[in-house]
């Protein structure tokens, strides 16, 4: 064997080993079970093969715009009063246009004052201001600001859903903006095929609530019950405390709370970590919506000196004494660690989605259907490969072995690619593998037919092989590039399953350029070296 050829064979074996590693990784054992497990760890199955839920959610961004303008209306009313400017009302004249605010009934003599106030820097960044008929002023949210708000809303909604899904321990979820429509979110949850469960996950109430404390803490649930005379009123409940609170009592702590929360979940507008100016303690600063703020003010003013409990997920997180009336913002103090503060502020935020969500597409695949699809897809692939292998052997004899080896290596490289790139194998992906086999066969047929032609034209073995490859190469290149172009476009413009198909097809074709041309050529060269002078290749 020539040295050159030895290097080529070494290269091919190296490629084979590398991509086998891509498929199996470093297997923990060599039994069939171990190998299968290591393949499963490397090559991820799509939702259609392992079962799971695929959802597209429409974020109702109008909710966020509404909240923003509501806020502004409140602010305008206050500012106008403060500046002693007359007005009859500040409203949104058209319920279908949440981005338009109208200030009505202003005094003509104060128009320059109103203009200064409304068109000042406070609102002009967000709104276009114009004066209209009957002493009214209209503020319309700037399209660029509204778009920005929409985007922030979608990003926040994604973060909220991600938090909730993570909290429930779903493996490898995918939550991302969905490119096809405006303000849509794609959610893929492998292994969960019960839509009702999916809905509870996404709309899960990792809710923050503030309840009035009736009494407590008690060392045990029984102690709490005893203190209430063993008959808890219907409007009260006993909840356990966690973390620092529980620790202070040297054990468990239980509180009796009012069942109905003072403020809860969607009443919170935001929550941020902060530091108390006086004590230097870490705090969580929260703001409430206007409506909830009024409610909270009424309650806190009337109950100064009493205690409130911050409750989340059914446990008491913090108990505080009401010092004075609180309207729409406050701080939750405690000896929190920095992590706890970030965590709490984050969890508080997951309590409220920035806007409501509608399901515009929901697809689930049960795990039994997924298993059937794998079996059927793999059967089809194996039958297809066997038919092709058998035919090549009959039709091209010894050279058929050559083609079959190239096809085998092609499949190894393709699956290895999938393992390395963490690509997901879907059902259409298996179809892509089958089509790759077809293209691989085509390349071999092109080359072999060409070699036969050259032999018929009277060329010697080596020259015929050489010319056959040279002529076929142009065609193979053209056909592969065109198909890769269309597969790439499919990848760019396709979604989900179609993307999986395009991925395997592209990988497969790239691998085929190597196996059908380079590997097949090397095998031919090795074969030619062993031929006696004048002997012809078996093709």
């Amino acid at each position, binding site marked *: 064997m020539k040295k050159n050829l030895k290097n080529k064979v070494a290269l091919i074996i190296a490629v084979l080993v590398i991509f086998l590693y891509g498929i199996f990784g470093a297997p923990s054992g060599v039994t069939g079970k171990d190998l299968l497990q290591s393949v499963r760890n490397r090559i991820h199955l799509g939702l259609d093969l392992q079962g799971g839920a695929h959802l597209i959610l429409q974020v109702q961004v109008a909710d966020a715009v509404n909240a923003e303008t509501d806020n502004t209306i409140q602010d305008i009313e206050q500012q106008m009063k403060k500046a002693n400017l007359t007005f009859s009302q500040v409203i949104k004249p058209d319920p279908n246009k949440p981005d338009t605010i109208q200030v009505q009934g202003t005094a003509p003599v104060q128009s320059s004052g109103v203009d200064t106030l409304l068109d000042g820097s406070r609102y002009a960044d967000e709104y276009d201001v114009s004066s209209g008929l009957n002493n009214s002023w209209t503020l319309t949210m700037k399209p660029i600001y509204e778009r920005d708000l929409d985007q922030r809303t979608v990003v926040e909604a994604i973060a909220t859903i991600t938090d909730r899904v993570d909290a429930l321990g779903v493996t490898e979820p995918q939550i991302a903006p969905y490119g096809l429509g405006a303000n849509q979110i794609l959610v893929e949850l492998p292994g969960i095929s019960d839509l009702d469960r999916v809905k509870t996950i996404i709309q899960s109430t990792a809710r923050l609530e503030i309840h009035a404390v009736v009494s407590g803490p008690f060392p045990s649930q029984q102690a709490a019950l005893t203190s209430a005379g063993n008959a808890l009123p219907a409007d009260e409940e006993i909840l356990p405390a966690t973390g620092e609170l529980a620790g202070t009592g040297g054990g468990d702590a239980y509180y009796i709370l009012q069942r109905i929360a003072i403020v809860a979940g969607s009443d919170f507008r935001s929550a941020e970590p902060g530091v108390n100016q006086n004590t230097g303690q870490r705090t969580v600063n929260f703001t409430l919506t206007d409506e909830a703020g009024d409610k909270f003010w009424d309650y806190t003013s009337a109950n100064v000196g009493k205690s409130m409990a911050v409750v989340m997920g059914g446990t008491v997180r913090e108990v505080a004494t009401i010092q004075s009336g609180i309207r729409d913002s406050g701080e939750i103090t405690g000896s929190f660690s920095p992590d706890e503060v970030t965590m709490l502020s984050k969890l508080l935020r997951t309590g409220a989605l920035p806007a409501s969500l509608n*399901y515009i597409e929901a697809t689930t695949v049960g795990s039994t259907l997924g298993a059937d699809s794998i079996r059927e897809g793999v059967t089809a692939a194996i039958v*297809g490969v066997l038919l092709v292998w058998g035919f090549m052997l009959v039709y091209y004899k010894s050279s058929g072995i050559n083609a079959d080896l190239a096809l085998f290596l092609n499949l190894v490289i393709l699956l290895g690619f999938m393992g390395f790139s963490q690509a997901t194998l879907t059902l259409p992906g298996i179809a892509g593998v089958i089509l790759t086999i077809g293209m691989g066969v085509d390349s071999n047929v092109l080359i072999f037919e060409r070699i036969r032609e050259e032999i*018929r034209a009277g060329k010697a073995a080596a020259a015929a092989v050489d010319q056959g490859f040279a002529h076929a190469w142009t065609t193979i290149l053209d056909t592969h590039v065109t198909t890769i172009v269309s597969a790439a476009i499919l990848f760019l413009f396709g979604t989900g399953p179609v993307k999986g198909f395009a991925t395997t097809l592209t990988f497969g074709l790239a691998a085929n350029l190597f196996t059908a041309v380079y590997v097949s050529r090397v095998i031919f060269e090795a074969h030619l070296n062993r031929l006696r002078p004048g002997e012809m290749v078996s093709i």
Partner: protein
Amino acid sequence: MERRGLRATTSTKGRAEVEFFHSVNVDWLGKKWYFLAFSLIFSVAGVISMGWQWAHIGSPVPLGVDFRGGTEVTVQFAEVPNVNRIRQAIDAQGIKGADISTIGNPADREVVIGLPEQMNEKALDVGRSDIESALRSHYTTNFIVRSVDVVGPTVGHQLEKQAALATFYSLIGMLIYLWFRFQLIYGVAAVVACFHDTLITVGAFSLASLFGFNGLELSLTVIAAILTLIGYSMNDTIVVFDRIRENLRLSRREALPNLVNRSINQTLSRTVLTSGLTFLTVLSLFIFGGQVLKGFSFALVVGILIGTYSSIAVASPMLVAYQEWRAKRGRAMALPAAKRGRS
């Protein structure tokens, strides 16, 4: 005219060959009017069927739930399901307009329960949970929900638009590549052939459902199949064009119709072999691939046949027709030879 089919030959050096086509000499271009008639009949039949379907079901081809919108719940029962009984259960729940049909083999015991598109996005999920609770109250545990598809009105249209765009862009992409590698007319001929194949394949879907074959719907995976057949058809066409380009360089004086015929004949054995083998793999997909891939493999079974035909009967005659048209207009007799490419 010499024409040979399958044969085993013993050539000069004592080699036994299995071959399907060896030195065939068919005058393909002489049959161009037959080809034209064949293509026209199938295209027109497809178009008429699509028009008929449009008038009756509102779309040229039955659409899958991903394009059409609506709700589809696929359920597998422990025993052979009784459609009437299921209908009673669904009716008892007060669900209106449900469409119940069995799919696949009776042995699969699978039923698809469909609901029409809900215009109200909030009502989308209600139908799905109603169906499930109706089944649960009548069948307790004797069934499993295999898959659920709920598609809102907006998503379907987004997908339709996206699929049309993807097809359009992939044709443009290939046209540009062929323009670069050959000449514009080659690209145009190949793209026209692909369009011809797509039209006839989609027409076949329309015709199949017209003649009562269920479950052949245009879905996202079928779009993937159509794009694949475009790739395959393009592949076949390029193989022939490549040979034409090569022959044009070798024998500049040969009349174009002759040269094209010779090129088709020289590549014929490859064309038949490859198409036959790909047909085998796709056929195994059609037979073993299960219900989910039915539409996908049907599109490819039709597409491979028609794609092979079109590279011989549509793309190549177009090159000759273009050349004759140029000659008539008194342009240079120069052949539309390829400008680039080695070999």
